């Protein structure tokens, strides 16, 4: 929704960002906003398929999912949650900066967002590496030998172990969901890189900052997805 194209229209002299087929800048902004919300609705359905699969198997293999969830590193997960929430704040500050016409502040906050996004991805990569080391990656080398939740209080002979197949199912969903989320993060980081460059060149003004606002919406959406993932993947069995 950026507007790099040359505008040949009678409105051109009024507002360089106004595209030829819109009557007013307000109409253009409204259209872009509605389009972004529809795109997010589409994203909700996209992730919805994954959440639906998670729901079915969590219900079916309740205790095994609890056991497998314990294997995730909650410190790293929590750190990443904090990092992402901070990045949502920096996006809002970027929008505030462009509304006030502060070009360098805009670039600063966008770069801050990018750095936080990269920090998230780095921590995520570290977590993935750990899964490889522990053979918790689905496939031929997958192995799992852990107790079901709450079993460690029982005498050794009575303890029950989680079904490794069902734990593999949990890790399948873990990689599918966090992988899809990470892909969205990568796209978001690229997007902010592009916007930061354009913003540095002075493309965005208090009269025209729709791309920043819409990219912000996207980023908040990706953030919210993570909040749910954090709960469903890391927290479901931490109450013991």
């Amino acid at each position, binding site marked *: 929704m950026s507007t790099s194209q040359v505008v040949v229209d009678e409105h051109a002299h009024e507002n360089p960002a106004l595209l030829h087929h819109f009557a007013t800048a307000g109409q253009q902004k409204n259209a872009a906003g*509605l389009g972004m919300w529809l795109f997010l609705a589409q994203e909700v*359905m996209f992730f*919805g*398929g994954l959440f639906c699969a998670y729901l079915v198997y969590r219900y079916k293999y309740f205790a095994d999912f609890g056991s497998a969830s314990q294997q995730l590193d909650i410190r790293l997960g929590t750190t990443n949650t904090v990092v992402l929430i901070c990045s949502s704040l920096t996006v809002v500050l970027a929008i505030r900066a462009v509304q006030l016409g502060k070009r360098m502040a805009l670039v600063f906050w966008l770069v801050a967002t990018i750095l936080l996004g990269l920090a998230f991805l780095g921590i995520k990569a570290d977590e993935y590496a750990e899964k490889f080391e522990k053979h918790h990656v689905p496939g031929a080398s997958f192995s799992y030998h852990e107790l079901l939740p709450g079993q460690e209080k029982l005498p050794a002979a009575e303890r029950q172990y989680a079904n490794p197949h069902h734990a593999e*199912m949990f890790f399948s969903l873990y990689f599918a969901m966090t992988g899809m989320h990470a892909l969205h993060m990568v796209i978001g980081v690229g997007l902010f890189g592009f916007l930061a460059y354009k913003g540095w060149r002075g493309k965005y003004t208090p009269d025209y900052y729709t791309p920043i606002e819409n990219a912000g919406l996207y980023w908040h959406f990706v953030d919210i997805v993570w909040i749910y993932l954090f709960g469903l993947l890391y927290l479901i069995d931490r109450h013991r």
Partner: protein
Amino acid sequence: MATIDGPDFGERENYLNAGHGLKSWLLTVDHKRIALLYLISITFFFFIGGFFALLIRLELLTPAGELVQSDTYNKLFTMHGQVMVFFFLIPAVPAVLGNFLIPLMIGAKDLAFPRINLLSWYLYIIGGTLMVYTILNGGVDTGWTFYTPLSTEFVNTNVISAIIGIFFAGFSSILTGLNFIVTTHRMRAPGMTWSRLPLFVWAHYATSIIQVLGTPVVAITLVLVALERLFHLGVFNPALGGDPLLFQHLFWFYSHPAVYIMILPGMGIVSEIVCCFSRKRIFGYKAMTLAVVGIAVIGFLVWAHHMFVAGISVYAALIFSLLSYFVAVPSAIKVFNWTATMYKGSITYQTPMLYAFGFVGLFTIGGLTGLFLACLGVDVHVHDTYFIIAHFHYIMVGGMVMAYLGGMHFWWPKISGRMYPEGWGKLAALIVFVGFNLTFFPQFILGYMGMPRRYHSYPPEFQILNVLSTAGATILAVGYLLPMVYFVWSMRYGKPAPANPWNAAGLEWQTPSPPPTFNFDEEPVVTWEAYNYDEIGEIPEKEKEEVPVVH
């Protein structure tokens, strides 16, 4: 592309002669030019899909496997299904006629996001290229439905490239729908209120809702299938406790509403044609708008009727059976209202109207046999037989393709600036109708008698009906080739079209044929209701005259 630039329409600049050369087409952001890009691409895939259909029918001419054996036959019906569903039926009307007409009908200069519109064509082309690669590389044999665990664990065909191709086509469809929704909300001309919108636009609005909310679900489902094949994630793998029924639920959550993506735009076309050639206001405008939106909403709640024999609970089957009956109510409202619109109208029998008649009749047969299938007991008997093949081809081909061709004839003068030869048009419409019924009506009987789908051989007592069906398919092929030939012919030799050859209502007829690049010379202001044919009157006599058949 040179033929489209073709004749010079005098001094007046229009969207066809506004720019020349390949670049002016491949980088265009004009919705009308993008519609033509889509027209060429979907026609290409229509003939690929049709080619597979002809091979299928040819094989079924005799009871034994004379032409192909089961492995190849599996690929033939899979490729036929995937190409036709994802690369023809779903984009056909929205991406060609919807793209061309929605901005014209609501009085806008373009869609809300012209560059996203072009992007969606490129996504379609990427998907289509992958599909062609899949075909050339040996095809897929999972059935168009990719059922797991067959598609994830067992077959050794090109599942991945087909899935990626369909994924791209899906996002092309999502972006088209998104564009249409925003355009309908934000780009209407002054005075073009929601209650004055042509039903064509309403139908596309309802379609777009399904495209935006349904398609992503099948996208992620197919991604999971691909991940399962590539990286052994086990979401649908029974060995890990995965549930193949989950795949079917997720798949049909989109793929049933997708049926409405295919049929709703056709309903929009028929509403326009029926009003124009009956010279009457549509009967029950408000009911018609509620019906399309109702079909879109209820259509999301009926998917498990594809799974009655797959092992879902009786209770769930009961609910989905009932909901499937419900979706027939708005569909019936539409059929009754088209009929009531024609009642006491001054009907003329031009080509588009012939297709509209065909649509109403065939859609009714397809819809009523759908009720048979919604009925649990009958469905168990005819499930996976030719009865179901006949049923959905009556909707998809008898309904949708008829409507598409009707619409192409109706708006061809606007698109190309030329009249098609009316005599040939009527002949082709007749051939399509006869060929279609001869192809698919025998399949109802075959299915009822118990001939299962997806087999290349069958007991000899089924042969006579199969021969009829194959003969019908051959006739149908002629009926589809004819319009293609005379449409191309008319671009050079057709009579130049006036702005409004049918004296039709609707803003698209109030701008020259073909329209200028920005659609209207002055922004239109709407002060009238849709379909104000009581104010417009009859089709002028000189336009009614048949253009002589050219031999």
